[in-house]
């Protein structure tokens, strides 16, 4: 599958976006998180979603990444309705086409850095040696050299987050979902993580959905939309 030829579009533009959510409604118990949000992500586009805490940013990411199904509305990825795919197919898709980076906690604490990064490759059927070799390359690229055999708890926050980034990117995904990737980091470590993410995504043509409440982090995107009261506010004019 190659969607890289698609041009970047604005919400509602004519060429089909790579990933689109339309009229998304989701409630947690009785609390509505999203009330009809629509959003579109072009191939290779870095899109920031900002908004105050509790505005439904993370829920939007979970819906678009096929982690949670919407109560109403549709999620379309490369022409297929994610909200209708069976769970097993979704899991596979998340592993092959998507990468996720959370604020923290997506690394397995007991695995070494290199094994954490190699895990998606191992799941995809690569040999252990091959997985470790390719994982090592990514770690080196993200400046985590010499720490391959350390466990996440032994790394600094910034290093651990760069390891998480490597794990999200190692399979060459079409879309990376990043939920407050610098939320637990100081500004310098955050800048290193964001620079690594933005550069790699631009080089590889990977689309990024970036959830953040920080304007300086959002500035790494090509475009920014705001979530307010469960709705996506009209997209800004792209810079």
């Amino acid at each position: 599958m190659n969607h890289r030829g698609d041009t970047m579009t604005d919400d509602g533009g004519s060429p089909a976006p790579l990933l689109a959510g339309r009229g998304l409604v989701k409630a947690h118990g009785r609390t509505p998180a999203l009330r009809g949000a629509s959003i579109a992500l072009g191939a290779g586009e870095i899109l920031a979603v900002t908004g105050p805490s509790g505005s439904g940013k993370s829920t939007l990411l979970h819906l678009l990444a096929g982690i949670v199904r919407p109560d109403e509305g549709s999620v379309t990825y490369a022409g297929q309705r994610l909200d209708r795919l069976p769970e097993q197919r979704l899991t596979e898709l998340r592993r092959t086409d998507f990468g996720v980076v959370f604020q923290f906690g997506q690394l397995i604490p007991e695995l070494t850095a290199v094994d954490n990064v190699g895990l998606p490759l191992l799941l995809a059927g690569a040999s252990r040696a091959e997985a470790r070799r390719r994982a090592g390359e990514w770690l080196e690229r993200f400046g985590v050299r010499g720490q391959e055999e350390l466990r996440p708890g032994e790394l600094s926050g910034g290093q651990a987050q760069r390891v998480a980034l490597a794990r999200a990117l190692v399979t060459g995904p079409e879309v990376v979902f990043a939920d407050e990737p610098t939320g637990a980091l100081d500004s310098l470590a955050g800048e290193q993580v964001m620079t690594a993410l933005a550069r790699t995504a631009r080089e590889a043509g990977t689309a990024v959905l970036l959830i953040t409440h920080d304007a300086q982090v959002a500035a790494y995107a090509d475009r920014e939309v705001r979530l307010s009261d469960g709705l996506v506010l009209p997209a800004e004019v792209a810079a």
Partner: protein
Amino acid sequence: MSTRHILLGLLEAGPSHGYDLKRRHDERFPQARPLAYGQVYTTLQRLVRDGLAEIEGTDADGGPERTLYRSTGAGARELARWAGEIAPPAPFVANEIFAKVVVSILAGGDPAAYLRAQQDAHKARMRELTAVKTDPGADLATVLSADYALNHLDADLRWMNTTAARLTTLTAEVDTA
């Protein structure tokens, strides 16, 4: 910003002429407003007048004749004094955005719309600066000067956010005053 001290600083590296100084200034302080050549020239003359710099000689080097300047002992002392002196932290609150909001309220305009437009412009500029700094070829000086501007724009943005949220109260206050 004191142009004379920056030029003095650049002269500390060794004698150079006006054009060279301008080029090195623009290189060292990327994203800053570039120095005008005329400004460099007058500043150098004032430095010589005050005894902080002196003329080393002229060199033709095949092209037009150029005057070489170098720093004096007094210049080095003045530079050290200035470099160690703290910059007064925000002595006056000069805030054009705030002035526009207040004027807009007085004139019965739409301050909220103005703030939104201003925020969008700020964000667009932030994306621009971030793109400059994430470019693989960007050197540290570029990154740091972009960071400086980004932090200030971010502070403006945050201020605009809280101001937008409190516009109603502000309007009532301005209108009754």
